[in-house]
């Protein structure tokens, strides 16, 4: 029963956050909406025995990512009040229909059975423990884990490359391919 109440409350929080995010005229409010949704998510993760992920969710997402977002919003520092009137013809209608349709179709598709896979090879004892995650991450998933190095390097190099391009650099490139 408690479970239901908790789920209900945080589901409402998550949805409300999402609604705020996609409707708020001020991007800061949007960020706040997303933040609350993420917190609600973390709660769900805990409820689903994914404690480590929940922690990461708070630390990385709510902590780092959202901060970054807010920072950028502040930095660009404009459009405090976004005009929410739609300028693209049919866009609103399409959005509404498509989003609603997507939700309805997904839900309808899963109404019989959301899980059809088998857990024949499952490791139920270990669910929810950080050890299990670690075991997996540094065992089976080592390669995947290592592969993130590419992502991170790119993130670093890419940011540098974009940042290096200052106003002075605008002028010095007059064409693309040289001889």
């Amino acid at each position, binding site marked *: 029963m408690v479970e239901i109440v908790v789920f209900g409350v945080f589901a409402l929080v998550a949805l409300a956050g999402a609604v705020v995010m996609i409707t708020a005229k001020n991007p800061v409010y949007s960020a706040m909406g997303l933040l609350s949704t993420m917190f609600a998510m973390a709660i769900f993760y805990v409820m689903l025995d994914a404690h480590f992920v929940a922690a990461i969710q708070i630390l990385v997402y709510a902590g780092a990512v959202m901060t970054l977002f807010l920072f950028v919003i502040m930095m660009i520092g404009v459009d405090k009040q976004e005009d929410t009137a739609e300028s*693209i013809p049919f*866009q609103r209608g*399409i*959005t509404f229909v498509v989003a609603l*349709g*997507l939700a309805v*179709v*997904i839900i*309808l*598709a899963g109404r019989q059975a959301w899980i059809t896979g088998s857990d024949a090879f499952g490791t139920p004892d270990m669910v929810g423990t950080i050890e299990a995650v670690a075991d997996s991450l540094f065992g089976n998933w080592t390669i995947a884990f290592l592969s993130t190095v590419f992502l991170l390097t790119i993130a670093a190099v890419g940011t540098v490359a974009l940042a290096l391009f200052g106003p002075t650099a605008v002028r010095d490139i007059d064409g693309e391919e040289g001889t």
Partner: protein
Amino acid sequence: MIDYLWLLIAIPLLGSLTLILFGRRFGEPAAGWFASALVVIPFFFALAMALPFIGGAESETVYVFSWIPMVGANASLLWDPLSALMSLIVTGVGALIHIYSVGYMHGDERYTRFFSYMNLFIASMMTLVLADNFGLMFVGWELVGLSSYLLISFWFSKPSAAAAGKKAFVVNRIGDWGFLVALMMIFAAFGTLDFGIVFSEAHGALTVGMATAITLLLFVGAAGKSAQIPLYIWLPDAMEGPTPVSALIHAATMVTAGVYMVARAAALFEMAPVSQGVVATVGALTALLAATIAIGQRDIKRVLAYSTVSQLGYMVMAVGLTAFTAGIFHLMTHAFFKALLFLGAGSVIHAMSDEQDMWKMGGLRKIMPITFGTMAIAWLAISGVFPFAGFWSKDEILGAAFGRGGGYLVLWAIGVLTAMLTAFYMTKLIIITFFGEKRWDKGAHPHESPFTMTIPLIVLAVFSAFAGLWNTPWRLGLEHFLEPAFEGVHQAHPPEGLALWTLALISLAVVAVGMFVAYLRYGRREELPVEEGGYWNAALNAYWVDDFYGKVIVLPGKAVATWLAMFFDMKVVDGIVNGLAVVTRSFGSSMRVLQTGWVRSYGAAIVAGSLGVILWLLLQGGAF
């Protein structure tokens, strides 16, 4: 010797090629004499080979080489009395006209080209005559058409000459189409075009209906070449060519090819009475029609042209009556006297500095005695005055018509009427041209032609006078001669005995009437009668048949072609093609609108697309 039969074709052909390629080196008059020699030689060659027929020699087929063997059309030649006779006429008259041309064409800038064409004609005509299958005959048939085209439009700088040449070729082609279809039918029936097989197996392989169809189509071809109704219109225009051409091609030889062809296919025509009737009727009507037109013509060559049409009508009538020998007989005599008439006319025109209007001549009798004398013989011959050549041949035809009886009596009547008209207009021609006042234009200095021109006239005059004696009712020399060619063919003959004499007398009587009327009208008065309005106008314009064809066939045809080309082809057929392209492009352009440039609408497409994809998958996968 017979193995070298092909030389009859090859020699003039060689001459033609030589003159085309190296003509300039020959110069004038060597080219003319060279060309003439290459016709004279075949003449004597043919003569040498023809003589044995008198002794009753067998017909022979000479295989030269294989041409289109799969349709049974090979280059193989037939030497029988009929082809021999035709060969002699063609080379003989041809040689004379060549010689005549040496003088006549003097000074023409394309002198050698003229003779090369003339030689080409002789070669083509010999091909036509000597062919032993319909295929090769058709070759000659078309090639004479080519020569005719080239020679009619010889003076191509004159638009009328060029147009006349084209007209001749095109109208002939209409006839050729009939010939061609006939050949298809023959091939379908016999599997070959070979004369020997076709004629000998005709009775077994053909039904009467088929024979009728084939022969009628053959006759369409003949009507084109021999200028019968309704395809005669090209012949008068063909007078645009030099006069020797008119004499050789459009009087003596080529135009008789139709008659020759019908005679050649006697075995087929014999099987088809309906065709006989049609052919004979068309011939008779053509004879009459052309004669009535000839009366009203003022141009000396056009008179002769219509006269030719008329005489061809006689011949066609003859072969239609199955009086093949009579047809060929008239063909032969006509070749002599009509060639003579044309050459004579040419001589006159030559003398009058290319004036052709008879109304501007007159009184030439004394200035050009030889021309006058020879032409007078021809006049008597064509009019059918005893004992000149035309009398015998024409009477045989009329006799045959009478002999067939029944409906053919009408044709006989027409023939007789035509004979009277012929006598009338020929007399008129002679009188206006040679008698009476001098009505020359200023600057005309008539003179007698040089000997190269007069000698052929004299020779022809001799033949015009006496050739008829070869086939008189008492001594059927020609008929006997031609017998092997018409072996097994039942021919129509004139009645015998008293009837024959009566008929001859009737003929002579109407001729006399015709001549007398002409004399009354033109010979007795100082002033020529004014011939304007009414009938004269109609006759002068040949009853506006040309205009009629122009309005009914040529103009609508052109309109249809223009519509097809400029509207249907460009707008409809091509319009559909271009329309498809336009549709494709406009589809692309309209799709372009969706590429708005707004990233959010791209996103909408992606999300909507995914919705579509999963919907399809779920529906198809049976998840709903």
